[in-house]
């Protein structure tokens, strides 16, 4: 029996982001199970996932990364779900260990291009470029108002979309920022409703905040269109939001009806092991494991041959559940993004 490849998965396992962290973990575990069932990587080494809780806080993320590297001596790291955590964690891990950052969209994560750092999610710029086109061409609201979370990502979204949507003639009527800890949004929504915009764009990462916002938009009596931010549509959100997400659009690199060969076994495994429906976050978890496994294989089986692994990942296409992934020299992945819509409580991809 060969020793396993030890991969640290650092994510929010408690606190407000716990649900999202859980989804990512499940996705990664299901993928590890699929790979291990087929004999593991590098001719027989199993993948062992070690979980660390960053509580969604940068300080805890740094501590967790230190522990993973210094105490538990892991081979590689998956982590950085929230941008703030990703940004500070990379300072500890950069140039020391192969790290795959997952959902954080902040451009700065891959801006400097550290040699062992990879990021899967599309940056907000890539997402917004795609999604704003869809909004302009397909949804076509005359005017729009924004309901964004008050953090870097939410602020970035506002800037990006204000620029892009004004560019295609949509009037931006106003915006509200809510706090990451808020549980009730009636005050903000009352203000937004009074702007009489054609559509309200909601940028919410947190599932429970999102669901509350979508429900409360309807409850305030708003009758216009609702647009969900890119990358933040998942089955749980749809379930929690009742009817209020019906016909609402979003954009996502993940769709259940994708064509990637590895999607099906993973979906099966996931559905078997967990009660949740697979979501984009879970797919990112799976993708991260696939990326690392591919890198180890490509580098000849040594999970510590970081230079080789990095070189391999940057030079070849990585087959994943969301299709083929290509990494830039700075470690940024480019993902295919699809327009999705909620129809009869199902997230379906909209294709022309």
């Amino acid at each position: 029996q060969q020793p396993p490849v030890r991969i640290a998965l650092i994510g929010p396992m408690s606190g407000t982001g716990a649900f999202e962290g859980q989804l990512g973990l499940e996705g990664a575990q299901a993928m590890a199970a699929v790979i291990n069932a087929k004999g593991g990587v590098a001719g027989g080494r199993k993948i062992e996932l070690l979980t660390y809780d960053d509580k969604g806080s940068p300080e805890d993320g740094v501590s967790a990364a230190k522990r993973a590297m210094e105490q538990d001596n892991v081979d590689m790291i998956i982590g950085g779900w929230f941008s703030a955590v990703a940004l500070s964690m990379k300072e500890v891990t950069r140039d020391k260990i192969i790290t795959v950052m997952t959902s954080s969209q902040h451009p700065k994560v891959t801006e400097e291009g550290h040699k062992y750092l990879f990021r899967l999610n599309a940056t907000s710029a890539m997402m917004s470029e795609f999604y704003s086109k869809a909004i302009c061409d397909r949804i076509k609201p005359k005017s729009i108002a924004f309901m964004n979370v008050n953090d870097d990502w939410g602020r970035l979204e506002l800037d990006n979309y204000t620029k892009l949507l004004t560019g295609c003639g949509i009037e931006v009527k106003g915006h509200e920022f809510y706090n990451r800890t808020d549980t009730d949004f009636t005050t903000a929504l009352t203000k937004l409703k009074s702007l009489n915009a054609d559509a309200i764009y909601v940028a919410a990462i947190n599932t429970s905040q999102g669901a509350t916002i979508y429900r409360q938009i309807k409850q305030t009596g708003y009758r216009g269109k609702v647009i969900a931010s890119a990358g933040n549509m998942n089955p749980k959100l749809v379930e929690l939001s009742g009817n209020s997400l019906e016909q609402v659009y979003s954009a996502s690199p993940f769709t259940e009806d994708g064509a990637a060969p590895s999607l099906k076994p993973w979906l099966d495994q996931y559905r078997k092991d967990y009660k949740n429906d697979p979501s984009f976050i879970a797919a990112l978890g799976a993708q991260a494991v696939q990326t690392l496994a591919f890198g180890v294989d490509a580098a000849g089986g040594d999970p510590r041959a970081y230079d080789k692994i990095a070189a391999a990942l940057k030079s070849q296409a990585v087959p994943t559940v969301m299709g083929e992934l290509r990494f830039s020299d700075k470690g940024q992945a480019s993902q295919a993004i699809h327009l999705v819509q909620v129809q009869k409580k199902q997230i379906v991809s909209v294709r022309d």
Partner: protein
Amino acid sequence: MDFTVFAQQIANGLVNGMAYVLIATGLTLVFGVLRIVNFAHGEFYMLGAYITYFVGTLFGLDYIAAAAISAVVVAGLGVAANKLIFWPLRRDHEFTILLSSLGLALLIANGGELLFGADPKYVESPFADEVLEIGTVTLTQQRVLVFAAAVVALIAVYLFIRYSRFGKMMRATAQNPDGAALTGINIGLVHTYTFALACGLAALSGALVGPTVMIFPTIGNWAVLKGFIVVIMGGLGSVTGALFAGLLLGVIESLGGGYISLGFMEAIGYAMIIAVLLWRPNGLFSTARGLR
């Protein structure tokens, strides 16, 4: 300024404020009678919402029945918590008791996360999405229900404390437990009932507020902080004080969020508390310590 929006914000604030009041009432009872700063109160609120959810989904009971069952069950849990933790510590320093309640809060919150899962849940209520138009103001039936039920519960609690014999015993125990014991008051029973009442109220507020938002295992944190603010601002142990303070806080937050800055909404609430306490150090409705 647009009057419709103004009226709507006032209405939002009153409903949110009433939810604070409901949470604060149980807290003020436990504080007023037992001198316990109960950080776990928010967790009983959380349990109230979750038990309503599970009774509804697992046993298929309707919302009202589920809420009632949850209030009773949580009242029982409160009695157990009192028996195991607070009663044995009743003569210890207030900071010790505070820490024990902090420990209990952590225990219930994390235990809840383990038992209920980290995923957010939604308490189904037939009133949740039904919109009522009252003049220019739009409210869901659920929000109206929060307000109405709170009013009823508050009046009942107030009358109970003010006029019942047991209320008198509670006040006596609050002011001097030894003296109360020597007067023939069963202070153990007073503790038990107070906890049952307070936790039942907490659960009721969880069940009522639940359908207006999402529930997840850490909602108690938020609830207990708001509750404390209201209790202190209203005056320790004063139910009337809690009522006014809660409504005031709700409305100020709503107007502050609506007209000044949403990001500073909470800070505006805190600023008001600071102003109130500097103006009246014992809170709006208080002359000294003790349950009234």
